[in-house]
């Protein structure tokens, strides 16, 4: 049972749950994507690039921000089909605002 250091680890501002993955081999299947990324935690959604220039890239959204951080830390440079993955936190402006308390 891996005990994750959760609440007290301070996350840097750019860390978030959406990971932009580049350098994926074109033949990577959905199952492979879920298998590679699913190891780090429950996945909210995966969008795979299918058109010309988006091929070989994907957006992987995790349920939990700590899982996303864990995945980026481990998967950057991960070898898939002879290519080394690039994993970046996807900087998006519309960060959902929590409801006022």
């Amino acid at each position, binding site marked *: 049972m891996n005990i994750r250091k*959760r*609440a*007290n680890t301070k*996350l840097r501002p750019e*860390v*978030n*749950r*959406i990971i932009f993955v580049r350098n994926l081999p074109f033949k990577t299947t*959905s*199952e492979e*994507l*879920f298998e590679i990324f*699913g*190891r780090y*935690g*429950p*996945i*909210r*959604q*995966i*969008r*795979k*690039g*299918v*058109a*010309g*220039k*988006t091929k070989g890239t994907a*957006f992987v*959204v995790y*349920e*939990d*921000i700590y899982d996303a951080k864990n995945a980026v830390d481990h998967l950057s440079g991960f070898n898939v089909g002879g290519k080394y993955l690039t994993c970046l936190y*996807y900087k*998006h402006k*519309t*960060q*959902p*605002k*929590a409801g006022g*308390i």
Partner: protein
Amino acid sequence: NEVLSNSLPYWSRGMKDDRNTPLTDEDLDKILPKDGYEIINPPESYRPI
């Protein structure tokens, strides 16, 4: 506001900011590009750990 801390929703306990609130599909559609991308569904064998 110690009293409030346990009344916070489960996803934001221990997190000051709101980066862990659940994302709805609309949120994702607003954030992520749609053209050139397709949402793939998890295979049956996929069991979130």
